[in-house]
């Protein structure tokens, strides 16, 4: 009898926990049942301020601070390079693609952009004004250094 009661309580608490979890799980579908289509959120607007964003770590590919809608990047043409290429920056006053983009995998500098760096938006992305779906607690490396220094100072 006692064992039966314990297993009953265990089963009941499992069910409650499962139900609670179901309510709490937030997915991109939100609460829309699988068989139905959710009303999509309005499209977020691209950030088009032309103000360069801080890099969160030195190796981060710089973000694109302008809209790139309809930019053609294929075998025939690369719209980004019409402003950011070595020869175009005098006219466009845009930042030139960095010298790393001319390096092949043996670290040899080529005369023009290396094919492995040709497709800009493999690494560089524009931003939108969308609210983040999940909170981001990324900490900048400078803060980490400050934190470590403070800790060492305290010890």
């Amino acid at each position, binding site marked *: 009898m006692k064992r039966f009661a314990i297993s009953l309580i265990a089963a009941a608490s499992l069910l409650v926990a499962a139900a609670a979890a179901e309510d709490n799980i937030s997915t991109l579908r939100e609460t829309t049942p699988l068989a139905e289509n959710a009303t999509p959120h309005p499209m977020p607007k691209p950030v088009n301020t032309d103000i360069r964003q801080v890099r969160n770590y030195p190796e981060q590919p710089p973000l694109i601070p302008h809209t790139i809608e309809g930019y053609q990047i294929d*075998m025939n043409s690369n719209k980004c390079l019409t402003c950011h290429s070595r020869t175009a920056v005098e006219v466009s006053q845009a930042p030139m693609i960095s010298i790393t983009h001319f390096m092949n995998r043996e670290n040899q500098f080529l005369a023009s952009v290396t094919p492995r760096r040709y497709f800009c938006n493999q690494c560089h992305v524009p931003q939108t004004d969308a609210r983040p779906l999940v909170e981001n607690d990324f900490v900048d490396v400078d803060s980490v250094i400050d934190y470590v220094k403070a800790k060492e100072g305290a010890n």
Partner: protein
Amino acid sequence: MLAFLKRLWTTIRRPSVHYSLGFLTLGGFVMGIIFWGGFNTALELTNTETFCTGCHEMRDNVFAELKTTIHYTNRSGVRATCPDCHVPHDWTDKIARKMQASKEVWGKIFGTINTREKFLEHRLELAQHEWARLKANNSLECRNCHSSDSMDITRQSARAAEAHERFLFTGEQTCIDCHKGIAHRLPDMSQSAWHEEKPEDMMGNATAFLAARDRMPN
């Protein structure tokens, strides 16, 4: 031949025997209206998007590409059709362009671009013709809608405003210099520099430079 022309001339300059002067003048007037009206109607018919996309060469290539661009769908719902950009709006220029277009009829009959591969092969040449035309008329077809007088650059992004101030308002460049590929996909641009420089010229410079270097004593 000469005898025939002489006979024709005498027939034309002889006064009419059977028809009255009123009939001939009024008839000529009415026929003139019918002819002129018909001519213009036919001309306008060839100046529609339905006519252009009646051929698969246009419908499956350039028109399909236009559909993804801002000149087809946008927030205000104003859109450009094929002739808005590709046919001059003034009558004389329009007729001149239509006469040039007889070459396109030739191309249609002999299937110059009747497959996707053939079209891609000719794309650079075709694009260069349009760029040259727009360059020569100072991007007139762009300016039919986009007037630089009505352009409020304070409503543009900082980058666009600066570029228009530097290049458009000074007349240094015209729309097509920067806005190539605005409505269709671009051809192989490595064979055609973005700004005017012809590939032959670039090759010429390089060859001249290398030749000069070779002549130099080491």
